[in-house]
């Protein structure tokens, strides 16, 4: 039996290392399409995809939309505000109504953990989780891994530290599952009030000093600090956060090696990351964005039933 992803992509926790590798390998040939003058292949011609975004998002929504359009799918964007959702329609009714229009896939971003799985269990269409609450954001984890693999040539054995608000971060969870399944060592670093109490039960190293994390790691994945964490009492001030946990050039210069710098965006410059780090020579933050399109094309292709071995030729013609 050939390896597949199943019907949906809900998270990286349920995937095997082989499945993750499959997505990353499938993304490789798709990278090139975005470099062409005419950035379009007919692979998903005739497929209908709904981007169902219950939370504001620019980067992820646009990235999915480009991935879909470059594969020639017909796409519709539905934002929660101004739709029937804001009139009190339930998630299940929204989904069923969309499905009644005979769609093939739904990309969902939702503020509630488990919303993507909820949808996937109730409709026939493929469901891709574009971020559910504080649970997972699998395509972000995949694009982070693709970016790391581009640089290091492998994931096995590299040390990646996730810095910041791990407690509320779906990006952190997807990175922890994905990276550990691929053989990387994962660290987390942040104030204890922003690390889950049960973090010790996950396969990660815990740092409470960013200096120690920097000394340990080959790469840092720096999370956005949501400003509302301060008003909710998790940290005293953004200023102190920057002083204690902010990743600065000064701190990086003391590291025994050059650290690759990732950030899922959008950045709070001067809070979790200083500008000279974000814009510095080891920042791959924009590579992540570029890779995001390729990874999402790979996921769309694989979920639609595309054969991994045909991905290269799919770039040129049929293949579905």
């Amino acid at each position: 039996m050939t390896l597949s992803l199943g019907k949906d992509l809900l998270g990286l926790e349920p995937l095997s290392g082989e499945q993750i590798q499959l997505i990353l390998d499938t993304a490789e040939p798709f990278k090139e399409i975005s470099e062409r003058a005419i950035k379009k292949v007919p692979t998903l011609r005739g497929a209908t995809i709904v981007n169902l975004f219950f939370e504001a998002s620019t980067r992820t929504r646009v990235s999915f939309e480009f991935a879909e359009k470059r594969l020639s799918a017909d796409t519709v964007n539905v934002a929660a505000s101004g739709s029937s959702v804001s009139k009190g329609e339930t998630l299940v009714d929204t989904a069923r109504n969309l499905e009644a229009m005979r769609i093939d896939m739904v990309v969902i971003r939702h503020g509630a953990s488990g919303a993507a799985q909820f949808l996937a269990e109730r409709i026939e269409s493929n469901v891709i989780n574009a971020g559910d609450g504080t649970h997972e954001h699998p395509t972000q984890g995949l694009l982070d891994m693709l970016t790391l693999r581009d640089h290091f040539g492998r994931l096995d054995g590299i040390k990646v530290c996730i810095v910041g608000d791990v407690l509320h971060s779906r990006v952190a969870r997807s990175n922890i599952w994905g990276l550990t399944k691929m053989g990387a060592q994962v660290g987390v670093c942040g104030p204890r009030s922003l690390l889950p109490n049960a973090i010790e039960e996950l396969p990660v190293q815990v740092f409470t000093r960013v200096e120690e994390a920097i000394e340990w790691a080959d790469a840092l994945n720096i999370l956005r600090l949501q400003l509302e964490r301060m008003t909710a009492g998790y940290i005293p001030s953004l200023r102190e956060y920057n002083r204690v946990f902010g990743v600065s050039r000064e701190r990086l210069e003391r590291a025994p090696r050059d650290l690759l710098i990732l950030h899922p965006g959008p950045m709070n410059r001067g809070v979790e990351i200083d500008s000279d780090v974000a814009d510095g020579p080891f920042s791959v933050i924009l590579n992540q964005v570029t890779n995001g399109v390729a990874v999402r094309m790979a996921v769309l292709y694989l979920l639609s039933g595309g054969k991994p071995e045909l991905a290269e030729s799919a770039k040129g013609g049929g293949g579905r």
Partner: protein
Amino acid sequence: MTGSILLRGGRVIDPTQSLDEVADVLVVDGKIEAVGARVSGDAKNRDGLETIDCSGLVVSPGFIDVHCHLREPGREEVETIATGARAAVAGGFTAVCAMPNTDPVTDNQAAVGFIIRQASLANGARVYPIGAISVGQKGESLAEFGEMIAAGAVAVSDDGKPVASAHLMRTALEYARTFGIPVADHCEEPTLAHGGAMNEGIVSTRLGLKGIPAEAEEIMAIRDILLARRTNGHVHLCHMSTRGSVELIRWGKDRNINVTAEVCPHHISLTEDAVEGYDTNAKMNPPLRTADDVAALQEAVRDGTIDLIATDHAPHHYDEKEREFAHAPNGIIGLETALAVNVTWLVASEIISLPVLIERMSCAPARVFKLPGGSLRRGTAADVTVFDPSAKWLVEPSKFRSKGRNTPYSGQTLQGRTRYTLVGGRVAHREEA
């Protein structure tokens, strides 16, 4: 009145009389007339005697549930007093206490009287109203306990809404002591539990759901125990869910503090793992905890640290549970599964005996809440449950008498099934094998 009924040849278990033997129970004019080995001979010549063969079955004083939500008035599409009272007898309960978080809140004598009147029309279990501690369950000023008790309330509680103010809890315990009723508290420190959807731990971390730490319950449990010590009032701690709470209750009882406690069938049978897959039928408050907590609660039922088992029967509409986990309401139904869950997880697994189970489901609730029933003594009202402790059955929510379908046991095969429920000598539920 009702005719005479002979419950013949069952295993009659009545902990209040240290009775556990194969015997007959004769019910005449709604009361227990006789219990013993030779009753059937005496009864033979009575006119209109109905004989029920109870061989292989257990004959027990009727179960009493001190904690259920019947949703009327306010949410009659979810449950009514009539459907709840009929679900109760189907589950072997001859009496239930209705929590006051209705709409409007049961915080005055007229509201209490309404529940009593609806219950009298229900042809199900007896229904004893519990009045609110505070007006509107707002946690500000005391409701009129005296008036509510005169109208038929048996206890006070702001269940579902924790009593955040220690001062209000203190005065409630003192004022309730005047009337000799318990104050039942839903122990939850609101700032710690705020926004939580399940137990805080590794599962909540993995699922990305905000956790409710055990300490949210334990802080309020010890606060209430200490206030009971201060006031000599009777505090009854609802639906305990953690090992820590058990230890605190044990501490209080060791010091003769007037504290009693209940546990729900789901907290002695399920763990937080049931939430896996975001199953909203595993969402309740307090949440399902860890296997270690379950073990501690089972042991506490055995040794009596936890006085009694109550259902926290909480029906919700299908649509309300059919949604994102964080947005779904808390609670599951329990009246029709409680016996089987308790038999399956406590008796069949040999943690407690059937007499202890009956003590925790019938005698102790009557004693702690000072209710009639909980005994098969001659001359008492014939509230009797006859059940088959070995019958296995598949939980199919569509067959429930309750309007609620929200149960995490759906599709499971459980052991222990009610066959007959007599309320005041009337056969209110009958299910021949």
